[in-house]
C-alpha cells in the first residue's frame, strides 16, 4: 500500500480518491458527500473543512474488513442512516477520529435508531479529542457500541448520550459526557465499560436485569 496525498477542494468529489493508502486533504468549506470507504485511507481536514452527507446516508460508512480509516481535524455532519448517522463501522476494521467534530447527525429507522453520531458493532474505534453535539437517535444519540465492537475515547466532549450493549467494550479516558451512559447486556453476554477520569453528567444507567461490567477509575 503506497501512501499518496491528494487535495480535494470543496465542490469536488472525494470518492474517486478513496484508494488504498490515500491521504486526502479536504480544503476549507463544505464537502457534500456520503462516503462508503473500502480501503485504508486518511481524510485530513484543513481549517474550516466540513464533510456533510446532506442526510443522504452516513457521512462515513466502513463495512469491509481489514482497513484502517483515519479522519483528522474534520467536521462530520448531516449524516443519516438506520444506524450511525455520522460514522457507521460494520466491518472488522479500525476507525480513528482525531480532533474531529461529529455534529447534527441522526440515526432513525422504524421508530428506533442506534448511534446518531457513531454506531459500530464490529471492529474498533478510537476517538481522540473528538467532540459530539446535536446528534439524534433513540439509542445512543452520540455513540452506540454494540455486538463485539471496541471503542475508546481519549478526551472529547459528548453532548448527548452513549449506549454500550451486548458484548461491546468501551473505555473513556478524560472525557466529558453531558448525557447518560447506558450499559445493557443480553441474556448471553455483558458489555464492559471502563471510565478513567471521566465525567458523566447524566449518570450511568446499568440495567439490573442485564447488567454490564462498569469499572470506574476516577481516582
Amino acid at each position: 500500500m503506497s501512501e499518496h496525498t491528494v487535495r480535494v477542494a470543496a465542490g469536488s468529489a472525494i470518492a474517486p480518491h478513496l484508494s488504498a493508502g490515500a491521504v486526502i486533504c479536504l480544503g476549507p468549506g463544505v464537502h457534500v458527500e456520503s462516503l462508503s470507504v473500502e480501503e485504508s485511507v486518511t481524510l485530513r481536514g484543513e481549517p474550516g473543512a466540513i464533510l456533510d452527507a446532506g442526510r443522504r446516508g452516513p457521512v462515513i460508512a466502513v463495512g469491509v474488513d481489514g482497513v484502517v480509516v483515519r479522519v483528522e481535524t474534520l467536521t462530520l455532519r448531516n449524516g443519516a442512516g438506520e444506524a450511525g448517522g455520522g460514522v457507521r463501522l460494520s466491518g472488522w476494521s479500525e476507525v480513528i477520529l482525531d480532533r474531529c467534530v461529529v455534529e447534527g447527525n441522526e440515526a432513525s429507522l422504524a421508530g428506533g435508531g442506534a448511534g446518531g453520531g457513531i454506531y459500530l458493532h464490529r471492529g474498533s474505534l478510537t476517538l481522540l479529542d473528538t467532540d459530539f453535539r446535536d446528534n439524534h437517535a433513540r439509542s445512543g444519540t452520540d455513540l452506540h457500541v454494540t455486538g463485539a465492537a471496541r471503542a475508546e475515547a481519549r478526551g472529547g466532549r459528548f453532548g448527548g448520550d452513549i449506549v454500550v450493549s451486548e458484548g461491546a467494550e468501551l473505555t473513556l479516558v478524560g472525557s466529558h459526557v453531558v448525557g447518560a451512559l447506558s450499559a445493557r447486556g443480553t441474556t448471553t453476554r455483558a458489555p464492559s465499560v471502563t471510565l478513567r477520569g471521566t465525567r458523566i453528567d447524566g449518570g450511568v444507567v446499568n440495567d439490573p436485569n442485564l447488567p454490564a461490567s462498569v469499572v470506574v477509575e476516577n481516582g
Partner: protein
Amino acid sequence: MLQHATRPPTRGRQATPEAEEAQGVRPDKQSRLGNAAVAGRAGVGQTEGAQAASSISNDELSSWLGGDEEQRPAMARGDGVGPQRPSKVSSGTFGALVGDKDTVELTQSADGTGEKISLPDGSPCKVLEVKGDRVKVEVRQGKDKKSGWALASVFTDQPALNRDDEAPGLKDDFIYAKQKGDHSPVDPKGKDTAQGALGDCYFIASMAAVANASPQSIKEAIKYNKDKETYTVRFYEEQYGGQAKAVYIEVDAYLPTVQGNRNDPAYAGEPGGKLWPAIMEKAYAKWKGGYEAMGNGGYGAKAMGEITGSKSAEKSPRSMKEEEVIPYFEKAKKEGGAIYAAVEHSRKSDVQTPFTGSGDQVSGTVTHGHRWNHIVPGTMKISDKGGKMKGTVTDSGREGDPSSKLSGSAVETGSIDYKKNLADMKFRAGQGPAKPADLELRFDYQGCVNPEKLLVANHAYAFEGVVNGKELQFYNPWGTWQPKPITPAEFLKHFTNISVNKAPSGATKS
C-alpha cells in the same frame, strides 16, 4: 427523528388516522445511577453465559414456595402446559401474571389482605419487591400504574413490553395470551411477516429477506418442544474477531396480544396468520432484554447475520450506476442472498404562518403535504416578522415524543402536539406579536419519499424479485402498504443501503 410512518398503520391498535400516525418513544432511562454508585465492578456474571429460563420444575417450585405447596395455584388454564416460570424472581424483572382464571388479583398487603385489584390474566408487570412466596409488582391499569402483591407462582418469565407511544410513562397496553398449537415454520415465506406496534422493521425485514432467500434457515432456527409447549430459537452471536456462536433462546407460546382479542398478536403476526415471525421476534426480544430494547433501534445487516450465522455484505447505492442495479439484484438473488434495503430519511424544511387567535393566545395547525409526513421534533422555530415579539420560540421535543413545550422568553405557556400538528401559545402580557399572522414558523418534516410508489422514509424493506427484467419489487414488513415495483433510478434516489446475507450452503432455497 422518529417516524410516524415507520410503524404499521393499523397493526396492534385501532385503525384510526390518529393511530396511523402514532409515534414511538424515547428510551426508558430506568435505574439511572450516579457515577459514585457504580464504582467498582457492577454485577457482572449474573446473566453472562446464561440461557433463557426454562419452565420451573416441581422441586424448584416447592423450594421457591418454601415447601408450602398448598399455596400453589394451578399453573395452566386447562389448555395444556402453562407458561415459563423463572426459577427465581428478583426485583426489576419484567414478566406477566398468568394464573388459572380469566383474571389475576393483586392485594395491597403482602399477606394477601387490603384492597384488591383485579387484572386480566396475562397482564404484564414489573417486579418491585419479593417477600416470601409473594411478589410486589407494578402493572398498567388503563392510563395508570398500579402496584400490589401477588403470589410469586403466578409470575411468568416474559420480555418487557415496549413503552406506549401515547403514554410514554407506561408500557404498552397489551396482554400476554397463549397461542395454542405448533407454530413452528413449515414453509416460511417473507410474506408471512407482519410488523406490529413495535419499531423493529429492521428485524422483521431481516426475517422476511432470509425467509425469501433461505426458508431452510428459518425452519432450522425454530424448534417446537411439544412436551413443554415452548419454542427454542437459535440465533448466532458474533464474537470479537468474527466467529459466530450459536445461542438458543427458549420462549413459551404466550404472545403480547391486543386488548380484547387474545388471538391478535400486538407485535409481529396477524390473527389467523403465520406465527413463526412472532415466536422469533419474541425470542429475539428476550435475548436482547425486552421488546423495547429491540425496538430502540438495530441494523438489518447485523440482524440477518444473527439469524443465519453468516456475515452480511453491505453496499451503498451511491456507488452504483443505474445500469448496474438490476444485474446486481438478479445476481445476488441467484446466489441465494437474502436482500435487505433501507430507505432514506427525506427530511425537508418549510416556512408557514399558521397561527390565528386573539390577544396573547394563539394556535395553529401545521401542514406538511402528506399524511405520512410529520414534524421532526426539535426543529421548530417561531419568530415574529413584525418584530414585536422578542426572541424566538422553539420546541424541545426529541425522537418519539408525542408532544413538547414551546419555549421562549415571551411565552408563558406553549405546546406542540406532534400527532395532531397543533401548536398553542399563550404569551406573557403584552409580549406577543402585533397579530398572529406575523408569527412565522420554520420546521423540518419527513415521512413519505414517494407517494405514488408507496415508499416510506426511514423504513426497511425486503427484496422480493426483479419484475419484467426492469423493475425491483420490495416487500414492506408491515405486511400491508406494499410498494409498487420501482425503477433502478427510483431505487438509487430513495434507498441508502443494501445488505446481502448468504445463508450457509444447504440452507438456501433450491
